[in-house]
């Protein structure tokens, strides 16, 4: 499984990419492989307040709906509109075109509590 080295990870299989104070959030390659064919994504609304560890989005495979937890607290600034018409991007490009939402973090210190790529790789057993 791909675990890019420039990202940080939540134990619940989300990733974040920091660019200044803008944070992009998605799910990992491991998560998409476990979920299998993703057929629907429900991102948060722009402007929504999200809390670290609380449900921010839902993705659904044919078999099951899965909550996506926000890795950080803050407010949602942008959502990936492409996912509405092409939710399979979450499977095919989870770290790129399959991103779910962007947010402004209210406390960037929370990033320190997220897993490093090495720690996340260890968690998923590789």
């Amino acid at each position: 499984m791909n675990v890019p080295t420039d990202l940080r990870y939540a134990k619940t299989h989300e990733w974040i990419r920091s660019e200044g104070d803008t944070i992009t959030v998605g799910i990992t390659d491991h998560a998409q492989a476990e979920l299998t064919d993703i057929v629907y994504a429900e991102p948060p609304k722009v402007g929504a307040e999200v809390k670290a560890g609380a449900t921010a989005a839902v993705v659904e495979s044919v078999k099951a709906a899965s909550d996506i937890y926000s890795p950080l607290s803050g407010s949602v600034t942008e959502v990936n509109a492409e996912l509405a018409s092409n939710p399979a991007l979450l499977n095919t490009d989870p770290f790129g075109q399959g991103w779910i939402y962007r947010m402004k973090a209210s406390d960037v210190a929370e990033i320190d509590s997220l897993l490093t790529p090495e720690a996340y790789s260890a968690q998923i057993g590789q």
Partner: protein
Amino acid sequence: MSDPATLKHTPLEACHLASGARMVEFGGWLMPVQYTGIMDEHRAVRSSSGMFDISHMGEVLVEGAGALEWLEQLLTNRVGKLAVTRGQYTMMLNEKGGVIDDLIIYRTGEAAYFLVINGACRDLDLEWMRSRLPSDGSVILKDLGDDYAAIALQGPDSEKILRSLYPSCEVPKRNGIAPLVASDGSIPSLVARTGYTGEDGFELFVPVAQGNGEALWQNLLAAEVKPCGLGARDTLRLEMGYPLNGSDLSPDRTPLEAGLGKFASLDDAAKGDFSGRKALETQRSKGLPSLLTPLKLTVTGPPLRSHYPVLSEGHSVGETCSGALSPSLGKGIAMAYLPPSLATPGTGLEIEVRGRRYAATVVALPFYSK
């Protein structure tokens, strides 16, 4: 989930693991839910061929001079309509008219009937049947559930594949059954032209002994038949509107409420009494309290699942039972017990998913046809 120690294992488990299956608990069995992916498997069955392990289903042989009369009292459809080698869909009801199980019965001999029952209710079904056996020995019931491995070969290419694997096999007509190959012992191998996908196909029953099931699986794999799991089995059957016992059928709902009245021979003078008949007649004269209704989202929305509220003009009128995203239609589909006044095709309703309401309409079955 059931206690892993009590989970039942199919004789084909090693085959599933070798094919990369994801295994899940289903009705007390450890079964493959998917291999490469549900969408992929679903499409294979619609366009070419796929195979499903159905070894969890129960097989019951009913024989004897009193078999026909006894089965007429046990089941809703008129068994006497069946010529030897023919099969029919039918149901076993409790005295309230509720569905204990839905099943297929094949007549395999002059006084021999082969019943295929749902895996999740094998024990309950057998208990119900045994408790009603006549004491004079005129009906002999044999539980062959653990003696058969069973594989459903489904899809438009099924006949071609069956003929290539068994060139001398008699290929049954739709809903028929035939001996598959000469078998070694007391349990015959059987091939039935039935299924749960809406496609042409066969259900193959082979004695579990000596690895017959695994050999059949390997032969089908070599013929490039795609292994398919319970996930695709569910989307395929729901697109056709076939009910799933435990989800769409229950001991508290009658076949009339489930829209399966044509499989209950209430107006056939030759049928006579059967368990649940009085309740069905009462319900028919008084009117149905609800009707199992096919619903389709008219907007892009999430896959539908069980227990989502269904609304009419803002008021809750029921909830979904079976639901899915139809891989063929790309839309959410579901079944729901609704007041009969709302069950007419074209009726506009809403389905609520995580607090959001999505427009839906009542449709006629099947949801999908080629």
